[in-house]
């Protein structure tokens, strides 16, 4: 009985340690969709977002077409999965803001963080972020309007990776 208990603790510790190695916890994502003004269109997006098991609930502002996706505990989805869901409904993402905590001492301008097969690049960071939950805007193509993306490519020319399109590579800035 006692050895079982120790085994359990050891297993739990192992899980905890490997889990801690490199993690990001996205608690919610605020998405503003573009190209629509009707509630039926919003509903199409709503139904797409609701179809994921990781999603706990969705808050909707129909007047601004803003969807706040709340994830279940220790569950989240990659930004591109949410973007694809909006596009499947027939629309596009105009803005996506992640509320997340990244396991790294500080996040400064040009910090790169690899979490599983995803790379987060932090750009345009004016004040370094300590280990805290912060709101980050996704700046990649498809996460901002086409117009805005063109502008961003120009203004972020000093970050050479920004204009390259790699769907597992995200560029984030703090809000």
């Amino acid at each position, binding site marked *: 009985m006692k050895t079982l208990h120790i085994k359990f603790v050891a297993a739990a510790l192992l899980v905890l340690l490997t889990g801690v190695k490199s993690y990001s916890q996205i608690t919610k994502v605020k998405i503003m969709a573009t190209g629509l*003004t*009707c509630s039926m269109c919003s*509903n199409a997006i709503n139904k*797409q977002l609701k179809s994921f098991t990781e999603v706990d609930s969705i808050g909707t502002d129909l007047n601004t077409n803003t969807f706040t996706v709340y994830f279940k505990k220790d569950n989240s989805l990659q930004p591109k999965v949410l973007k694809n869901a909006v596009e*499947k409904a*027939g629309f596009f993402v*105009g803005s996506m803001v992640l509320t997340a905590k990244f396991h790294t001492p500080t996040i400064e301008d040009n910090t790169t963080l690899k979490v599983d097969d995803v790379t987060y690049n932090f750009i345009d960071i004016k004040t370094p972020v300590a280990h805290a939950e912060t709101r980050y805007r996704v700046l990649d193509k498809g996460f901002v309007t*086409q*117009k805005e993306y063109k502008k961003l490519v120009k203004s972020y020319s000093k970050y050479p990776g920004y204009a390259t399109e790699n769907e597992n590579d995200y560029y984030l800035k703090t809000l």
Partner: protein
Amino acid sequence: MKYLSIVFLLLVSFKIDAQELFVVTEPASNVPAGSIGVRVGQSLMKNQLESGSMYNLTPEVTWGINKNIMVRTSAFLSNQENGLGLKGGGFYAKYRFFSVDDLQSHFRMAAFGRYSYNNSFINQEAIDLMGGNSGYEAGLVATQLIHKVAISSSASYVRALNNSDYSFPDFLGNSAVNYTFSVGKLMYPKNYTSFKQTNINAMLEFTGQTITENGKSYLDVVPSIQFIINSQARIDLAYKKELYSSMQRATSDGVFLKLEYTFFNVTK
């Protein structure tokens, strides 16, 4: 009565932007990927050639294959000869190839094609692939949405083939250009509070045709009102009126009642 109950059983739809959920024309936007829309269209048209009127029943199923491609199959029933009977069917596909979306606005373009099969007796010069003629159609549609108003226009080439039991008459032109212009506006609500709110859209659509061989044309106007219930079901009421025609048509003026219901995320 039997058909009426079928219609009510199948009730109601959904599609993309409500303002562009036109009643007799199609916007450049598609239905959501993975959704299945079931629509039952009914029309009662005044018969131009003899007394009385013609009743048409058009059940349709629309499927969003992916975000850019949707397909639709339709069945055409009418009481043209001895009671209500199946006159034909059609297949329609639309590919959205261009989108520029911004906050509460978009401009989209799509290419579409239609193939219809029909076994009705051909009694008019107008080519009607929605229940009168066998044939095919290919065209382009562009739609602009600005806040609560959608404007859409399409042009297509139409070619009539022989109907199964009746050859297309030699003395009639068998190819035509179809053109449409549609405007839709969200009238209610002014501000959204929930998905349960009924939306009301007002629309005005123009549909025209010119037979390429002889230049004969018609132009119809179709005002309509649309109710969207629970952000999932749709009721369209429309009235079609001929504005101009230089060709012989079996029917032109009449009323439409279309009911549609959309099942979201049916396929992945």
